[in-house]
């Protein structure tokens, strides 16, 4: 059987978790974002395979569900990288050189155009400004906050990321 890139993971296991989520929201309106948040919380991303069951449960067409899913930047439809680096590029971080830091990180970790390495070990993505400007420039290394990351600290972040990838691998 050919191995199709399905968005990752095996379907039956996913659906097992999905059912309990959908049961709670069955037939309700105004809950789609919450359903996606729960799914992303469970699987780390929103597998495309969940679109049809979600549509059925909420009485929406699959294209409508897909449309909503892809409108919001917070939902990802592919498995997250092992080591996620979230860079704030808000105005304060921007003027303090966060973009240069991002370029250095991408250079060292070998990040491709889509924001992650080919083996999905490292990923660099942009997070929206949440107003923690007293720590600017700011980045998140797997949800851990690193504040005041000046351009000169970029190489240290790369080392931290490598260490994190090693820990996760064992």
């Amino acid at each position, binding site marked *: 059987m050919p191995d199709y890139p399905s968005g990752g993971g095996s379907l039956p296991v996913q659906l097992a978790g999905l059912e309990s989520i959908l049961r709670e929201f069955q037939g309700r309106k105004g809950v789609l*974002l919450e359903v996606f*948040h729960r799914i992303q919380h469970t699987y780390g991303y929103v597998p495309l395979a969940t679109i049809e069951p979600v549509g059925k449960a909420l009485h929406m067409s699959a294209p409508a569900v897909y*449309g909503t899913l892809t409108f*919001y930047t917070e939902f990802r439809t592919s498995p997250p990288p092992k080591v996620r680096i979230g860079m704030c590029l808000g105005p304060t971080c921007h*003027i303090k050189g966060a973009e*240069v830091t991002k370029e250095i990180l991408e250079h060292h970790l070998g990040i491709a155009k889509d924001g992650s390495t080919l083996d999905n070990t490292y990923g660099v993505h942009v997070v929206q400004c949440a107003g923690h*400007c007293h720590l600017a420039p700011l980045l998140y290394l797997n949800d851990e906050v690193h504040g005041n990351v000046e351009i000169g600290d970029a190489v240290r972040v790369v080392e931290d990321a490598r260490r994190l990838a090693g820990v996760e691998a064992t």
Partner: protein
Amino acid sequence: MDAYAALKASAEALWAGRAARPRIEVGLDSSNQHAGAAATLTAVREAVSRLAIDAEVGTVGDLGMCWAEPLVTITRPGEPSVVYGPVTAENAAALIEDVLIRGNRRSDLALGAWGDAPLDGITPFSQQPYFQAQRRYLLARCGIIDPENIDHYLASGGYAALDKALSSLRPEDIVKELSDANLTGRGGANFPTGRKWDFLRTARGDTKYMVCNADEGDPGAFVNRILLESDPHLVLEGIIIGGYVTGASHGFVYIRDEYPVAVQRVRHAIQQASERGLLGLKVLGSDFSFDLEVIQGAGAYVCGEETGLIASIQDYRGMPRIKPPFPAQAGVFMKPTNVNNVETYAYAPGILMNGIEWFKSVGHGPSKGTKLFSLSGRIQRVCIIEVDMGTPIRTLMDACGSGLEEGRTLKGIQQGGPLGGIIPPDWLDTPLDPTNFNPQGTIMGSGGLIFLDERDCVIDMCKWLIAFDQDESCGRCTTCRVGSMRMVDILERITRGHGVPEDLEIMQQLSGVMQNANCVHGQFIPGPFTSTYKWFREEFDAHILEQRCPALACRSMVEYRLPVGAATGELADRLVAICPVGAIVKEGNSAVIIDSRCIRCGLCAQAAPAAVQRASRESYREQVREVRYA
């Protein structure tokens, strides 16, 4: 009403019971948490049990003093509370031991004390410029009460306005009161709140909705966050009063995804309020029923536009639509709906309790009341403050933000969010009042002020803002989708030194065309450009005519020069090691920069300022001119 009196009495008893023991309160909102408050709290708990101190350890919200976080407030019985910061996991134990056991007040770590008299060398807050410049009405409880404990809110006079409204005021009285006070929307559009509520009150239909817009997406604005995280019940009370006035039965609080702590706090607050009978069937025993739910956004700036937000609540793509019909006619699920900002709702209880005259007495200009602002950028103290409407920006910058870094000069202030503009330093003495901004073609916005100094390029900032807007455009109308893209293209060209004078004409034409966009997002996208063009014309000239960035911030127009022989031996090795992208190599004994590899991070110039020079890129200027005038 009896139900409320009982709630308040028990809350007050609990509040009064706290006075007997020393209290240690750790600020635990997202701002403090980012600074490491969770570790501080653990260290405090450990220290208290290790030293066997009989003290209450609690959590509070945010005082707004972001620059000194994590904050810890220590109160000894019978004395005013003292706020310390920054208190990290390392110095927390020593601080507690000093203050509560040795009796040393540690004025070195103290930020200030509540109360009016100096306390062992600790200046009271009331005598510090940071607080003197402010009038903390909405922020009165922030950083003092535990936002997760409804009793703290009740004990400090919370829900009294709701009780007053339900027991003695008719909806039309409240509308009249808000209209007479002339409370205007705090989200940026400044629409009179009383009129808006009256639209919904008089709208036909059985089902009506209240929506609280907490999708505070403006980068650099974080004033709603402090209210949601540090005093969520104040916002809820405003929404419930709004529901009573307008006859709505259901409300939504739409909170952006980037504020997970706010989502959790507001959900918790709704649950507590429901348990106490302040929400749900028959609120406080009256005939009015109302319930609330939180909708967590998912990262779309344009959902801050009311019709986009309504679309998002209804499970659709969060795309704004053309108005009319206005939300008061057809909103959530096509039912009449009222949408207000967090700050606007938070003001409703105060006006009901303190009266119109009180509200009108606050503010220096035509707009009344106070307004929250967040200061960031090149300011020394990043903070969230509340000042009278009409306070000059200079007061905010100097008294609250403690000015710019030593020796820096102000270049401009980015205000009004990404749809606002960049104003020049001459505006420092202009009162912060929407009526001063609108005639100048800019908006005061929701409260973010980002200070720029001479190291920052306003054209680059303008490009950044419009690129943000372009990225967040929903794509429904071509005007906005394509117009913003063209604007970014042109600005990108200008910041790379490829701009031509005609570009400015095209930009102006585009700015005119964009006024026809469907929603305010598209209509205001030219804002950063028109303001920059109006007040920073010479920067455009330098970029376009001279291929020069005066701030040396546009990286394409900057070069780092390291002449052969300037760095040799050990210094050369150091520079080679310091370059993060391998653009510095050794040629013989001397280090040289390979220009094509250099990303202009500036680390080499920092490490060896004598050898490496940062300068405008002369060779590039010649190249551009050759192409242009060939």
